[in-house]
């Protein structure tokens, strides 16, 4: 019951947030220099007066402001994200075509960064002040300061250009004719560098959080009790400290998942990964605002879905949460 109510309230909140983003998009279109129809047509539409006229009618630019807003938001709510004149396709089709690649990339990067971050954080906290700790926290500090796209470029330079170990470009080998397992292996090889470089920054974030949280929980009374009982330190760390220390890390991971989607724009640009981030980059150069706003909306929706999932995971890890709500 409590879970059903919680899910319902989360979904309601998600719907309101999406509505607010749709309204924000509308104001952004109007904030752009020039009239909205020209803006949405982009460079491609500038030469065609008929297209502009169609757009004006579609947005009801002769209508009062609030009717324009209602129309725009109505369109978005019925999943009509407009038409990309540049690509000659509806924006929704463009995004759907490329969404799987982005999901594969961001989810892989998320799991790599979370698992590696937590493992390194636990390792550092177990040897606090020693060489291992200094090494791990130092590396995290460095990754934390490294721009995503630069890490990606340097990875291409070293592992792809110099060593030739991994492909540094694209989603799979073009024209290879691979099928089944061979194809999956091929995609996996293409996935390693983008996922690792996208996850690097977030790994540093999760590592720092895990380390701090482990050290904080280790001070609590129940840990002293466990020690007094004579339990082995490794068991205390795994069963007692880690389980409690993970809670703030999960919260943070849910919040940061959204930033992963943003970071994908940079990673996909460097690796020519055919996802929605790369689509956004291509649309920037073409000033295809309809597509840019569409990708923006969909990435916000992805964040909301991530957050709902985190919320549910949180309830599984800590049943006390459900009781309070």
């Amino acid at each position, binding site marked *: 019951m409590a879970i059903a109510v919680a899910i319902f309230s989360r979904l309601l909140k998600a719907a309101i947030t999406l509505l607010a983003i749709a309204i924000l998009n509308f104001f952004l279109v109007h904030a752009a220099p020039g009239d909205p129809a020209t*803006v949405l047509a982009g460079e491609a539409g500038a030469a065609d007066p008929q297209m502009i006229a169609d757009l004006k009618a579609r947005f009801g630019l002769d209508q009062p402001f609030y009717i324009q807003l209602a129309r725009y938001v109505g369109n978005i709510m019925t999943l009509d994200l407009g038409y990309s004149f540049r690509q000659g396709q509806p924006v929704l089709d463009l995004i759907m075509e490329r969404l799987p690649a982005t999901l594969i990339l961001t989810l892989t990067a998320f799991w790599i960064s979370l698992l590696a971050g937590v493992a390194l954080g636990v390792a550092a906290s177990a040897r606090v002040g020693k060489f291992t700790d200094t090494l791990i926290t130092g590396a995290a500090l460095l990754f934390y300061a490294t721009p995503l796209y630069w890490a990606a470029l340097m990875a291409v330079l070293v592992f792809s*250009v110099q060593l030739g170990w991994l492909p540094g470009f694209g989603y799979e080998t073009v024209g290879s004719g691979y099928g089944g397992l061979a194809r999956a292996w091929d995609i996996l090889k293409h996935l390693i560098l983008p996922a690792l470089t996208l996850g690097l920054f977030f790994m540093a974030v999760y590592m720092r959080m895990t380390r701090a949280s482990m050290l904080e929980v280790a001070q609590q009374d129940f840990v002293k009790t466990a020690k007094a009982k004579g339990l082995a330190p490794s068991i205390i760390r795994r069963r007692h400290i880690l389980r409690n220390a993970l809670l703030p890390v999960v919260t943070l991971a849910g919040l940061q998942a*959204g930033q992963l989607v943003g970071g994908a724009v940079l990673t996909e640009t460097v690796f020519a990964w055919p996802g929605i981030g790369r689509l956004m980059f291509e649309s920037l150069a073409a000033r295809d*605002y309809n597509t840019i706003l569409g990708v*923006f909306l969909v*990435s916000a929706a992805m964040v909301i879905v991530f*957050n709902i999932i985190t919320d549910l995971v949180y309830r599984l890890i800590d049943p006390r949460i459900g009781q309070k709500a």
Partner: protein
Amino acid sequence: MTFWKRFITNRGALFGLAILIAVLLLALLAPLLFPRGPWAMVQRPFLVPFSTDGLPLGTDTLGRDVLAGLVYGARVSLLVGLVSTVMALLIGVPLGALAGFYGKWVDEAAMRFTEFFQTIPNFALAIVLVAILEPSLTSITIAIAIVSWPPVARLVRAEVMSVTRREYVDAARLAGLSNMHILVRQVLPNTVSPIIVMASLMVATAILLESSLSFLGLGDPNIMSWGFQIGAARTVIRSAWWLSFFPGAAIVLTVLALNLIGEGLNDALNPHLSRKGRS
């Protein structure tokens, strides 16, 4: 005194401070060091670093001095980082202070608003804002400020809430001071240290954001920046590694320096603040 002693004994913070001062000096002296500016074509293109006298870091795809670009790029990074952080503070501090001080519906409304901005993916919103407002130094700074204020508001709200519960605030109320006076004169000064720590980390994040936007081609077209240098060299990475390597190293060093300073400030100002710093 004690604050400085604690800060100076922190080796990391001192190292960060030294780097930041060096970057600051280079940025200020740029017009003296390279009077021809960062766009001048000084030699033939693609000169390898350390191969030609006077051009230690080589030349780029158009024969421009890479070092001159780096030095001028420092100006943009520091300026955008600083101004956008000040702007984010100007949004976040009053909002968080009012929410924390008045509570009830003011708090509810302010926090819903903040939550909304925290849900939107930061970088994607910054891209959309700069793309729509047309890339310029102003639009980049505004966009970065708009995406970075929410953690400030949350931090200030929490701090103000805890300070407002202290007894001296009750005393000030009894003395008949106005709400505004209490908030601005009595409460806010006691929340300054965590705000300073957060601000120094925000400058670092802002520099990363600015460079990422410039890398995507959303930088001010008239201004040389580190992100632009890397973005322009992206397609020639296989033949000219140094064009991407040096500007990136400059970003890493500067951001690292600011993060170290932030941690040093945090430890020096208040040893147990580190736990509150997270958003």
